[in-house]
């Protein structure tokens, strides 16, 4: 949606101009303002349309990181799937908050369509936060770990 300030600015622009209609659209929003030709009090008609909503999909919005600094790295999911903290329900988790991890160390498994993806850490550091619970669905680019590097 457009915010009210943006709309008001456009209405003013239309009122002060010689043109009778403005239409602006981008990827997911569209606005068309038409100046009334009846000379009534209402100087313009505002129509805001949005593209049809996509079919509802069960998704989880990525959680916001607690802090992002120069030495904070965010590890995100490379694909849609289910997130697993351990190779099997009876196994110990690969990592826990507070653990020091090395480059190449497995952090978790993302499973999608029976493709198992052992996600390896790309740097040395310490796990500051784990953002997803075991066996939960994740989207592409979903935030999984916050890691503090040395």
């Amino acid at each position, binding site marked *: 949606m457009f915010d009210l300030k943006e709309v008001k600015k456009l209405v003013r622009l239309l009122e002060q101009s010689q043109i009778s209609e403005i239409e602006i659209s981008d990827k997911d929003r569209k606005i068309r303002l038409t100046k009334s030709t009846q000379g009534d009090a209402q100087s313009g008609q505002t129509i805001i349309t949005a593209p049809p909503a996509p*079919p*509802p*999909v*069960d998704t989880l919005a990525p959680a916001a990181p607690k802090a992002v600094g120069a030495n904070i790295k965010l590890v995100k999911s*490379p*694909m*849609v*799937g*289910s997130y*697993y903290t351990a*190779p*099997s*329900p*009876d*196994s110990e988790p690969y990592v826990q908050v507070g653990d020091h991890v090395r480059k*190449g160390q497995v952090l978790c498994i993302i*499973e*999608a*369509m*029976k*493709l*198992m*993806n*052992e996600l*390896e850490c790309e740097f040395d550091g310490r796990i500051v936060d784990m953002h997803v619970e075991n*066996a*939960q*669905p994740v989207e*592409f680019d979903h935030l999984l770990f916050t890691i503090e590097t040395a």
Partner: protein
Amino acid sequence: MAKVTFGKTIIRLGTVTSTQDILKESFHQGVAEGAIAIADGQTLGKGRQGRTWDSAAGKGLWLSTLIEPSGPEALWTWVPLWAGIIVRDSILQFIPDKQISRVLLLKWPNDLYIEDRKLGGILAEKVQHKSGRSAVIVGIGLNLKQQRDDFPPHLRNRAASLTERTHVEIQPEQILENLIEQAEQNVHLLKPIDTKAIEKAWMTSAWGLGEQFQVISGDKVYEGRFIGLGPHGEMCLEDSAGKVIHLASSDGISKVTSQ
């Protein structure tokens, strides 16, 4: 695109823990795409989340092969579905009875079913070499010669073998030959991933399409009508409110039969 030769390297094994683990080790030693590790039997054949796949010595086709898809890795999730199609097409010629071949179906994402019994399973693992080379190791388990009593009791009503259904004894080597041919003919669909072509081929054998399903995924149970595949190969269920649910993994899929 360079031709990929499957089976140029074949690692033949007796009874091992898992062909997946052996091929993974070979990958880290630099084995080429198309390499195959095939075993007489496996003691720890891999299933999801630490489960094992019953792989009795001499009773089936137990193998793993190395594939290097190209394009965005986020779409490599289609590789297991591609593998399901390849296995299906490798065994079709051994099922001359059309009554049986038309019930040879793919249960999402890639289990091979004859009617409502499992004939084969596929598990894929993404692997990364320290050089940065990424690949997928596809593990295939196909029941060939088992009779009903050969399966563990808990699988007897859920598993099937080709011999049991066709009454013809088929050797693992015969299937292997077809599998190599099918993989070579169709590997271009992975370079890069041709989602539309894989989806189209998969949908021709979709088990339970249009039927009502209950799916356990994580700690939730979803129910809806199976309407097709999502952009990453997900199972799409339409619930009673018309909402479409995309599922990327499952801990149990069952058809809901009306009373």
